[in-house]
């Protein structure tokens, strides 16, 4: 035993480095090699939800703030990206049959004759990329500041974020002329002149998406292992103690919530790029709460678990709803209940409790000369 070393705070433990390496091999190696273009694009779509799950690990798992409105941020990010792509697809040339050429088709159908002001910035790619992250994060900041400064948390926060998801969905569906309504923003073609519908483009976008996801994992890991990460855990435990240790508790919660929103927004934008449309069905109550289950299945405390959880649930959803659509909802429902009742730490918990000890035991048994250095678990 060397107690000093245990106090050390490395960026990642060896196990975590191994997990990261495994994840990279899976995303960048195995999956692209094993799957055809269609399936790979599908996995790419699943991985965009993993951004949301990552954010929830920070916000819900680590800090105890359950947001049931992550779809809002996913959607806002996705819509920002979709608005840019739509404007590019609606050039005067492409839309000359419309009564007002140069505006998106759904606006024309709804007798709108000029581009609304809030669409204008999305002519520019740099502004769009900024907006993709900034708009949802700012929105999260406003909601977070209003709630956390007044010490609203726990169940109340969950309910209010859910209401916000409901409101935004109704608003998007209702304001057809400005948002594309229930169909969303569809028929997206090019990104800065580059056709995103080709197979090559889709493969490239898959890798970009994977790269961004790994980057977000690293950011989340940096936050989690910093003192800030431990303060988040401490707040989940004893908020008052943190407050009376001289911290502004609200700011830390706002930070966690904004970070989760920013991750979700990046996921949303990548979703739009890979799938080629954005619609209110990714914003509302149902998708938002489903995103929570991804994190829960993976293990609400584990960054890597969240990604595997997302992949697993979505893979199950696609498989089951293709072959037994009736059974899928029963299965998903049962999954919610099982994860809460039987596996509160999800896949990561199962791994830690059952697989890891066995591996360590075997590793210890093989080279008998190894000094005793069991992980502090």
């Amino acid at each position: 035993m060397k107690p000093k070393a245990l106090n050390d705070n490395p960026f990642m433990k060896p196990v975590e480095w191994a997990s990261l390496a495994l994840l990279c091999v899976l995303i960048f190696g195995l999956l692209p090699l094993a799957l055809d273009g269609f399936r790979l694009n599908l996995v790419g779509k699943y991985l965009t939800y993993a951004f949301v799950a990552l954010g929830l690990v920070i916000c819900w798992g680590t800090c105890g703030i359950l947001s049931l409105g992550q779809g809002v941020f996913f959607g806002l990010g996705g819509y920002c990206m979709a608005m840019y792509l739509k404007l590019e697809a609606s050039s005067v040339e492409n839309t000359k049959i419309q009564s007002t050429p140069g505006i998106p088709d759904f606006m024309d159908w709804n007798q709108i004759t000029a581009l609304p002001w809030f669409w204008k910035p999305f002519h520019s790619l740099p502004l769009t990329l900024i907006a993709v992250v900034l708009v949802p994060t700012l929105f999260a900041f406003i909601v977070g500041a209003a709630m956390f400064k007044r010490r609203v948390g726990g169940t109340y926060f969950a309910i209010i974020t859910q209401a916000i998801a409901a409101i935004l969905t109704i608003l998007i569906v209702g304001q057809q002329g400005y948002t594309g309504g229930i169909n969303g923003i569809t028929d997206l073609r090019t990104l800065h002149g580059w056709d995103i519908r080709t197979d090559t483009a889709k493969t490239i976008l898959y890798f970009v998406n994977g790269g961004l996801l790994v980057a977000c994992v690293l950011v989340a890991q940096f936050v989690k292992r910093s003192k800030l990460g431990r303060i988040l855990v401490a707040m989940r435990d004893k908020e008052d103690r943190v407050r009376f240790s001289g911290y502004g508790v609200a700011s830390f919660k706002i930070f966690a919530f904004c970070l989760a929103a920013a991750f979700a927004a990046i996921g949303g934008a990548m979703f739009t790029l890979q799938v080629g449309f954005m619609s209110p069905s990714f914003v509302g109550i149902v998708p938002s709460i489903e995103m929570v289950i991804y994190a829960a299945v993976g293990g609400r405390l584990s960054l890597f678990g969240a990604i595997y959880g997302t992949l697993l649930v979505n893979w199950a959803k696609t498989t089951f709803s293709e072959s037994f659509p009736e059974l899928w909802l029963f299965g998903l429902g049962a999954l919610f209940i099982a994860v809460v009742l039987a596996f509160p730490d999800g896949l990561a918990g199962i791994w830690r409790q059952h697989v890891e000890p066995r591996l360590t035991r075997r590793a210890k048994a093989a080279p008998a000369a190894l000094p005793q250095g069991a992980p502090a678990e």
Partner: protein
Amino acid sequence: MNAAILPGATAGDKDFLLAVEALTVSFDGFKAVSDVSFYVDPDEIRVIIGPNGAGKTTVLDLICGRTRATSGSIKYKGTELTKLSESAIVQAGVGRKFQTPSIYDDLTVFENLEISFPRGRSVLGALMFKRDAAVRDRIDEIAEMIFLKDQLDKRAEFLSHGQKQWLEIGMLLIQDPELLMLDEPVAGMSVAERKKTAELLHQIIKGRSVLVIEHDMKFVEDIAHRVTVLHQGKVLSEGSMERVKNDPKVIEVYLGH
């Protein structure tokens, strides 16, 4: 019922570390604390006693900003505390221990202490916080004092009740507050733990003012410079333990039934 205010107490509050004046808080008509005034000198150890429901904990809550005063003032080194946020009050140098041990179960003893280390309290500061030699040494030093040197890597939830109390005291010590407020620091401890805690408190009260709520009279007699007796939200008596013990009003409230 006039409070026995110390002679000369109202003459300029510059010299007091803490000056509580006419402090009142009412919860929808019920005055939990009513017109309470008292003054704490630098390096003084003041014990607040009084029967259950006398408003002792509420007074501490008011000072550290957990409860907001209805009227009255709390001046700490000349700064009005009633308007400051909780974290600003802490940063001004006021530390508070809660009645039940309030520690972070999911973190190790080391991490518990580290969070209380007074550096990197902003979001960015916490993100960039480095666990350097200064932090490490200070934590080792405190851990030694609170008898937890060998438990640094243990998750706090596995500590005994007494050890949890010590850990929380340690978390306050590492903040190095000028005014330390302790709410029943020896409650619920075994005899041996109690003795060790008294020892610990004797050690840590040096060089700072301490405001203690305690029921254990032997313990109070042992440490108190002065005692303030609260009863039904008001100051009933104040002075040395000797004086308070012989105050007929106190005897009536405390020993009369």
